[in-house]
Structure formats: C-alpha cells, structure tokens
C-alpha cells in the first residue's frame, strides 16, 4: 500500500524532485534574516522601554539605550542584506515601495523595515556622547543633538514609544511572514508571531547581558570572558558600565526564555490537536528528521541550559559568564533555521504516507 501511495504522489501531487526541482527554495538567507530581524526588534523594545520608564539620571543603562540601538542598526543592515541576497531580481527591489498591500505580510514588512532605521538612530543619538565619549569629542555635533533631544521630554517619550511599537511590529512580522504561508502546514500557526517576538527579545537581552559581562572592569570581569570581544571592552573602557543592570538583564532573559518555551509548547500543542497533516508536520520536529536537532539545539542548548545557568547566576551560585549568552544567541539562530527548513519539508500531501 505504501508503494501505491508513493506512486500516486508522483502522479498527483508533483512533489517529485526531478520534476519540481525547487521545492526547497529558502536557503540560509531567510532564517538569518528572521534571526536578525527578531533580535533588532528585541533591542528596540528594550531601548524604548528604558527610555520611557527611567528618568535621565537613572538611565545609566547605556548598554541598553545606546550600544543596543547601534548594534541593532548594524544587524538590521546585515539582515536586510541577506534578504536582498535572497531576491531573484535584485534590481527591482525598489518596487516593493511603490505599493502597499494590506493583506500581504511582505508588504507590511518592507514598510515596517523603513520605519525601523529612523527610530533606532534617534534612540541611539539620545545618549551617544555619554556612552562613547571619544566619539563625541571628535564630532561635537553629537553633543548638540543629544542635548536637543534630552531637553524635550515629549521627544524622548515619543522616541521610546516609537521604538517599542515598531519593535513589536517587527518581531511579530518575522513570525507572521512564515505563518501566513498556508502551503506549509508546519508554519500554519498564529503562535509563530509571538514566538519569534519573544525569541528575539531573549536573544537581544542575552546580547546586552553579554556585552555587559565583557565590559565590566578588569578585576570584576570573569576570567573566562577574557579572550572574546575584548576589543569591545576597550571601546567602552572610558566609563564603567552599570553593574545593577546585569542581574536585571539575566532575570528578564529568563522570563523571555520561559515564555518562549511556553509558546513553543503551545505551537506544537496546537499542531498536535489539529488535523493529521498538522500532526505530521509537528512530528517532524518532535520525532521526525528534525527531532534530534530540535530537542538538542533549540530546547536543550538554546533554552533549558541557559535558563539553568542564568538562574544559578542570579542566586550567586556561579559567576556571570558569557556562556548563556552564546547559547541563547545560537538557540535563536537554530530555532529559525529548523523552523524554516522543516517547514519547507512539511506539505499537505504527507497525510497519505
């Protein structure tokens, strides 16, 4: 019987690699883009929240408010570039901006991305001179701009709100981009939006936490972090960064990871209680050909292990290291790679097999 359905599949559904050679059309560019997009969204939200919630004197979390948006700009550009690499007709990229289709997540995305840049730049400019004094010395205009923004409360709140709003939109959009594609049952879930949003938040928090661990002054710096990114430490050495933010970030990261884990559970639960096709799509991750990498890289290394390590750090049982940071970042990349790749493997015909 199995051979018979295989024959039918060849003739009916055309899922034949020899006839339809480009079933697997999304390579590494899309998951990398989704990862950067999610992380930038997280950085924006954190920066925005801190800008709104804290008074200027309390805003010593320069890592969050300045370095975050600056890195965000860099990663966003990287992500856009990978997306651009994925386009078949690269010269026609401008056409995306000649129209707005309300039902198309692609159209939404390209317009959201256009709003991200100014929001991030404005956020970074607000505290730039304090974060990198060397730069401000060379370009005095930065001080003028910063003073101009900080002197106007409405501006500061406005920038903060804009960052939070655009950040949430961007984070959810990276998930909906997949979720809106009905042809792939694995992606057919609205949970993907919040899932990618919280995954992005957790990677962003982890990244900031990592920068903080590395840039803490020498005597407090865990020896283990020495050999990584010490150049970055040099850059910000002029001003020791706030210590109280470390535990805050670790705690926030733990909550985001927990929510992410719960959302992953909901995502899979939704599939498992749905049609046979969706069940099979979910079992690709749970027991199928992506089972091992999903459980080990996404759940084990990407979520559970950093959760355990950060909890121990918060209880002062172990030192703050960059290990959970690296794990969370790689877990975020793995989640998107596995979802994009497994999603392309899931299809509506599977139920017959």
């Amino acid at each position, binding site marked *: 019987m*199995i*051979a018979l359905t295989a024959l039918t599949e060849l003739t009916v559904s055309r899922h034949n690699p020899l006839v339809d050679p480009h079933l697997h059309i999304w390579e590494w560019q899309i998951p990398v883009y989704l990862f950067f997009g999610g992380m930038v969204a997280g950085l924006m939200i954190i920066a925005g929240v801190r800008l709104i919630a804290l008074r200027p004197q309390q805003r010593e979390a320069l890592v969050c408010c300045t370095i975050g948006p600056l890195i965000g700009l860099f990663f966003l550009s990287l992500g856009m570039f990978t997306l651009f690499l994925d386009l078949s007709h690269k010269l026609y990229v401008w056409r995306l901006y000649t129209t707005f289709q309300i039902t198309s997540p692609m159209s939404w995305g390209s317009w959201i991305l256009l709003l991200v840049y100014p929001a991030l730049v404005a956020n970074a400019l607000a505290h730039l001179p304090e974060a990198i004094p060397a730069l401000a010395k060379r370009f005095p205009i930065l001080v003028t701009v910063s003073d101009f923004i900080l002197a106007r409360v409405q501006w500061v709140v406005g920038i903060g709100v804009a960052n939070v709003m655009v950040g949430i939109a961007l984070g959810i959009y990276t998930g909906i981009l997949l979720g809106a594609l009905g042809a792939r049952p694995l992606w057919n879930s609205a949970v993907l939006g919040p899932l990618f949003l919280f995954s992005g938040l957790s990677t962003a928090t982890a990244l900031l936490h990592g920068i903080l661990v590395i840039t803490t002054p020498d005597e407090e710096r865990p020896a283990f972090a020495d050999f990584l990114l010490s150049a970055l430490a040099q850059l910000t050495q002029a001003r020791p960064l706030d210590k109280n933010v470390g535990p805050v970030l670790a705690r926030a990261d733990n909550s985001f990871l927990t929510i992410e884990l719960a959302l992953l559970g909901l995502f899979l639960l939704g599939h498992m209680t749905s049609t046979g096709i969706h069940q099979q799509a979910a079992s690709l991750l749970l*027991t199928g*050909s992506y*089972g*091992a990498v999903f459980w080990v890289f996404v759940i084990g290394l990407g979520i559970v292990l950093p959760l355990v390590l950060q909890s121990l750090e918060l209880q002062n049982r172990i030192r703050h290291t960059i290990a959970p940071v690296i794990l969370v970042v790689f877990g975020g990349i793995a989640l998107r790679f596995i979802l994009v790749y497994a999603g392309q493997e899931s299809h509506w015909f599977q139920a017959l097999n």
Partner: protein
Amino acid sequence: MSAPFYKFGLFGDEASFIIAFVIGIGFGFFLERAGFGSGRKLAAQFYFRDLSVLKVMFTAIITAMTGVYLLSRLGMMDLSLVYLVPTFLVPQIVGGLLLGVGFVIGGYCPGTSCVSAVTGRIDGMVYLVGMIAGLLGFAEVYPYVQNYAHMTPMGQITLAKLFNLPYGLLVFAVVLMALGAFMAAEWAEKKVGGKEPDPKGSFIARPWRLTPVRILAMGLAAAGFVALVAGDPYRGSHATIDTKDLAIRAGSGADSIQVGQLADWIIQGRNDFKLVDLRSGTDFAAYHIPTAENVPLASLTPDFAAHNEKIILCSEDGTQAAKAWFLLEAQGFKSVYLLDGGLRSWQDMILFPKKSDKTDEAVFDRQMQVAKFFGGTPQAEGTSAPASVAVALPQVAPPAQPAVSEPAAAKVQPKKKKEGC
C-alpha cells in the same frame, strides 16, 4: 523489556541522538568532577604523584563490567547485541603505544581534552587543534598504509573466548585485580609522591571504618563473586522456550508475512530485515527472491544472525521454513517470520498473477507493475500455465527500475557508518 533498547527497536535514530547528548553530559560531568579537565592532574599518573586516572578508569570499568554481566545473566539484556570493536592486535598495540606517548606529551586524551577546553584550559584547546591536524595528516597517509591498518584481525572476540575461560571467572579476576591495583596505587602515592591518603576516600588509610568507598569496593567484589559462580552471561546457552506463547503465535498467524507485503518491502528498498532462503544451493541458484540469502536448513547455526534481527524464512512450500522457525525461536531469536506459502505462493501471486472476473482492474494494474519489477509476467484469465512456470522463471537479477531499484538499496549496506569510536 529487553536491553539494549535501541537494538530492539524501542526508539529510532533521532531519539538515539538525543540520548547520546544526555549520556554525553553525564560523561563530561563525571570526567570534570574527577579532575580530568586538568592536564597536570592527568599527567601526575605517570609520575606516581596522583593515580586518579587509574582509580577512576578501573572503577568505571569494573562498575560497567559487573553491571553488564548481572543484567545479562538475569536475562534483562542480550550481551551479544552490545557492539564489540573488532580486534586487530598489531594496530591496536602500535596505536596504544602512540597514544601513551601522546598522553604524556599532550597531557590529555581526546575525551578529557574536550572537558579541559570547555573549562578554559588553553592547552586543552590547542590539544584539540593538534588532534584535528593529526587526523587530517593521517587521512592523507591512510591510502598508503591501509593494508597495515587491518593486520592480524581476530574478529569480535572477548578475553573469555580467547583464553577459553568462563566469562564470570574473568569478571571476578578483573574486579580483584582492580581492587588490588587501587591499594597498590594508594601505597605508591604515599611512598613516591608523599601524599597522605585522605581517610574518607581511601582503602588503606586508618581508621578501619566503613566508608562509602569501602562499601562500594565490597559491593563490586560481591558482584564479581556472583559472576564467578553464576555462569555465562551470553543468552544463547540458556534460552527458555515458552511453548504456550509459541503456540499462540503460530496459531494466530502472527508469525508469517504475506508475499505481497514482502514484494512491497523489496520494491521500497527496505533493508531492515534479513530474507533467508532455506532451500539447497542449486535451487537457490536457479531462482530466488531478490535480496534473499541462502542458508540451507542443515547449515543453520545459532550465530548466523543477531538475535534482534528481523528474519524472514522462505522455502519451497513452507514446511522447511516452519521447522527452521521453531529452531530459531528456541534459540532465543526475537522476530522470526515465515513467508506465507513459500516460494510457490510467491510465484503464483507475485511473478505470475492471474486475472479473474473478480479482480478489480486497478488492483490488477498494480499487480502487473509488481510482477514486471520482479521480472515475471501476469497471466490473463484462464490461461494458467503452471507447467511452463519453471521454464519461464526470470533471471536472478530483476531489471533495474527507475523508482527504487534494487542495486541502490543494496549499495546502502556496506557504506553504513562505523559504530565504534
């Protein structure tokens, strides 16, 4: 439930990787706990300063050895299914010496270097890079030394088989030897290294109180003693026959496979079963089902296949196969099946299917395809030609099919990945 779980198909490959990860965590954890992330502690072994390497290694060996023995002897585990790296004596002696020298120079072995690298030891990281360089270099030289790499093959052989001694006796001897070595090691540490043994974690230090370490040693010694008297852990020699269970299986037909199903499996290129043809060599040469393997009933020995392998027996009409089925079941083979109706049925239903009024058009189309795959010809209604069948039997190798051709399936087997380290 029977161990090893994986070999009895309790879970698949994907799950096995997750288990590998978890087992690895345990492995790495205990290596680090023992202090094996430190090259200096490891190397101290060779200067009699700190003999932890010997203590940890042999405690682990005798723990696992007695554990495996007891589980197998209690019938909970089939020891013959645990993978044994084949012995090639000369390469293993040469490799061992090289490894010993490398151990003193480098300070680690591959497993411990992982632990040392991840806990921040720069020399451990450099060691890993060196190992990768060594592997790259060896791979380039390998084609020239390939012939020497498999010198003096002795197959998968245990010390018990080699010396023709009871397995249990050797288990006991190794336990005693290890416990003796531990005491000697503690004595040497005191004499040469001047290290006063810690009374809590030592065998020879006074006072003579019952410490956890001593309880552990006594437990292991007791397990070793049980091994001495309890007999052979390999299953074949003491398989029990549950006649009732056998009768139920034989009566319900759960012991047989239909020819159609077998044909499907072969077309799909499945190789998770072993098809055994029990007829004589000449009959086999005249015609046999593709992928079948010839083992005449008279030469059927208990070690012709692993106990957990799925075996499908076929013979001319099924009588021979039924005899072999009982033989193998009694030997403790776990999943033996009969090809229902034997080769005769295979001819009638697969190679030369007949069309009658009742056969559905689509079904017959499918039968025709199957028959074509195996080189047979479907028979039209009424024109049964059993007499000509013998003449018209197809040649042994079926014509290659584009879908799942048989050679492709066969090619998978030898390229299977290595199981050992």
